[in-house]
């Protein structure tokens, strides 16, 4: 019976692969972290008790009905035409404040779309009126 000779082994851990392992970890974390940056329409609410008296002709009312129809200054407007109409109005009067008023049964996405259209028209003075 032949006894096999023991191989001489060295007890050193190879360090060459260490960088690869660390890189793999890094790439794994980079890939798995989803950066969900919050995006949205920014607006500044008016402070409580700071109601200002504004000349009637500088206000353009934008009403949203419960069914989602939009009235601009008393006339029904389609949503996709809203920004163009507002742009025309702003060109005529640059002090114009657009007052958005929504019916309480109106849907939120219509309201967001109206705000989006106003922002598209580069309207900076937007006022959110309380729905009665």
């Amino acid at each position, binding site marked *: 019976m032949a006894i096999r000779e023991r191989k001489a082994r060295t007890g050193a851990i190879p360090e060459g692969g260490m960088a690869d392992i660390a890189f793999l*970890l890094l790439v794994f974390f980079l890939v798995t972290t989803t950066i969900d940056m919050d995006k949205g329409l920014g607006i500044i609410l008016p402070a409580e008790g700071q109601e200002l008296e504004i000349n009637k002709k500088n206000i353009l009312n934008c009403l949203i009905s419960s069914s989602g129809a939009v009235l601009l200054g008393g006339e029904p407007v389609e949503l996709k035409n809203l920004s163009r109409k507002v742009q025309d109005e702003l060109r005529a009067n640059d002090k114009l404040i657009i007052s958005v008023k929504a019916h309480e049964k109106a849907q939120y996405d219509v309201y967001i779309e109206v705000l989006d259209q106003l922002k598209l028209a580069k309207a900076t003075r937007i006022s959110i009126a309380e729905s009665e």
Partner: protein
Amino acid sequence: MKFRRKSGVESKISTSSMPDIIFMLLIFFMVTTVLREFSGLPVSLPKAERIEKLESKRHTSDIWVSKDGLISIEDKLFNNDDVRHVMYEKRAADPQLTVSLKADQAARMEIISGVHNELRKADALKLNYSTKVKVPN
């Protein structure tokens, strides 16, 4: 004219500190990522084109509004009239606070304007309607 003999300097970059550098990068990324704190309510956000990015996650506080009219802040449900107390404390702790309103697109405007009123009473005036990106057509 004599040419100088090239010196026998080995031009190898030492790779033995490579793992340390990579680990440092790894730790940097792990520390700087802010994890999502609250799960909120299931909402389908509306879409908009002219969106802005929120400046900083650290100065942002989320309010979820579901389509049934539930209001959730930090995974707790609130009545409309209690929102002002919560937000007032948050606003007092962080003057740069931006409120991110994550409301369902089918939510009714009465709830939204209720939240508006509460935020005005709490003096948290910087509001952001959280939306998805709409591809302009």
